[in-house]
């Protein structure tokens, strides 16, 4: 991970670490904090705890997002302090979920914009001039548009991939595929590396092809405290506990010292977290299908 971040994440980059609740790559976020990247434009539908930590650590110049809360547990206070003018300045560019999905879809297709029937009656276009409109060449209907989002680097956490980065994901898929195809560089982080033959045995499960991947990193528990379907559950206590930590800048600083700066890598994090085994997933293995002909 150290090498992958050093090689592919640069100061000033537009960075996407995607994963909707599922497979959020905290391992990569922590490494970016450790390497003290600066002036990043961080993009995610839900900034979540990972971007709250990166904002607190001073990595971010700008945030592009659609829902900035602590799902089911409260606020992202580092984000809120910045947004409410009580923290470091942070530029905000705000859409809805559909808008962010559309921006990445356009980026993946290498089109300059994406069309939606959306935003009429909302104040979002008033505060975000990048939400515009286009007239249908057939019906004349005016539809709303968002510009393509093409990150410098996208980091995707997957359950498994082969050495070339052919990555398979099951459970919630979020916008990882679109983000990866939209990006100039792609880092795939996985719970486990498998032999190419395991990928080839079930090609319909592959979400990201190795041909667009620049680096593959194995990082078990790399998505903790978020979850990896079939590997480990969400550490909900940590999410609830974050409310208290992030509310107090000093406590947040202590957390970063202890769990990020104070550690050399993810293995040390896993060890420091102690009993993560309590989150280990139960077995609900599905049947295979026949690819014969």
């Amino acid at each position, binding site marked *: 991970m150290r090498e992958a971040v050093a090689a592919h994440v640069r100061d000033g980059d537009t960075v996407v670490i995607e994963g909707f609740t599922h497979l959020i790559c905290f391992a990569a976020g922590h490494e970016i904090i450790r390497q003290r990247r600066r002036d990043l434009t961080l993009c995610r539908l839900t900034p979540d705890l990972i971007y709250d930590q990166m904002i607190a650590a001073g990595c971010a110049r700008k945030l592009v997002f659609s829902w900035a809360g602590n799902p089911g547990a409260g606020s992202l206070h580092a984000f809120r302090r910045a947004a409410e003018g009580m923290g470091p300045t942070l530029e905000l560019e705000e859409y*809805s979920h559909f808008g962010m999905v559309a921006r990445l879809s356009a980026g993946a297709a290498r089109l300059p914009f994406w069309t939606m029937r959306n935003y009429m009656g909302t104040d979002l276009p008033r505060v975000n001039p990048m939400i515009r409109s286009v007239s249908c060449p057939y019906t004349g209907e005016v539809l709303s548009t968002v510009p393509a989002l093409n990150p410098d680097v996208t980091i995707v956490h997957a359950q498994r991939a082969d050495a070339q980065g052919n990555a398979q994901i099951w459970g*919630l898929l979020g916008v990882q595929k679109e983000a990866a195809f939209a990006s100039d560089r792609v880092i795939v982080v996985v719970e486990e590396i498998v032999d190419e033959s395991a990928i080839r045995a079930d090609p319909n499960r592959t979400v990201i092809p190795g041909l667009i991947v620049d680096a593959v990193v194995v990082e078990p528990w790399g998505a903790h405290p978020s979850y990896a379907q079939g590997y480990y559950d969400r550490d909900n206590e940590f999410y609830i506990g974050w409310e208290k930590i992030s509310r107090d800048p000093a406590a947040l600083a202590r957390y970063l010292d202890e769990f990020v700066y104070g550690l050399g890598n993810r293995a040390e994090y896993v060890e420091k977290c102690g009993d993560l085994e309590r989150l280990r997933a139960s077995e609900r293995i599905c049947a295979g299908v026949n690819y014969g002909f």
Partner: protein
Amino acid sequence: MESSYTPSEMMTAVAARELRDGEVVFVGIGLPNLACNLARATHAPNLVLIYESGAVGAVPERLPVSIGDPALVTGSLMVSSMADVFQCLLQNGRIEVGFLGGAQIDRYGNINTTVVGDYTRPTVRLPGSGGAAEIAIHARRTLVISRLDRRAFPETVDFITSPGHRINGRTRRELGMPGAGPTKVVTDKAILEVNPLTGELVLTALYPGVEVAQVAAGIGWALRSWDRLSEVAPPSERELRLLRDVLDPKRLYLKQ
């Protein structure tokens, strides 16, 4: 005390009754999720639960702690990418009921989940839209669940995240919105419904033992009400048993 119940339990029961069997519902976490599962366990066994995270036909074995809970995926009928959720399901018009909540809901059902105060210098920065803007625009109808409070029901919201029935005097049809918007607001004391003629939220039904004045006290505008107000039945024993013993045994959402 078997007849006593909390406001959350009442709101959940009332919201559940709003759902018809077989409907496709865009579900949120908390009371909406409980309302949907209560409906599934009672009069609407064929309700199709869809979460913006992509889980379609979810049958959560545990109370989901987030909209992307793994329990929503395990045993579901389909997992959609979010691009498909918003384009092929929501924008396609397949969602019959959406649930919305908000820090502010105004006279015309406009909802604010973005900022309290000025957008560029907010006193309180809220999470933002998430999928709320497009749900309010596309779902055939949306249900709002919110406790009465003058701050929560101002005359005008500070920011329109999810459009209601009048936006600067313009109707949803004039603005080209496919869905009917927030047709009903389920509060802790009464039910408000949109007056289709004026686009205004009006009082249409009271919970047992509630006076109109108590409702008006929690509303930031001169609340109008139907001449004849219906009284809403309290949660039945069965509804309460399901909520307490099966759906939220730890009282995560139903305590108050």
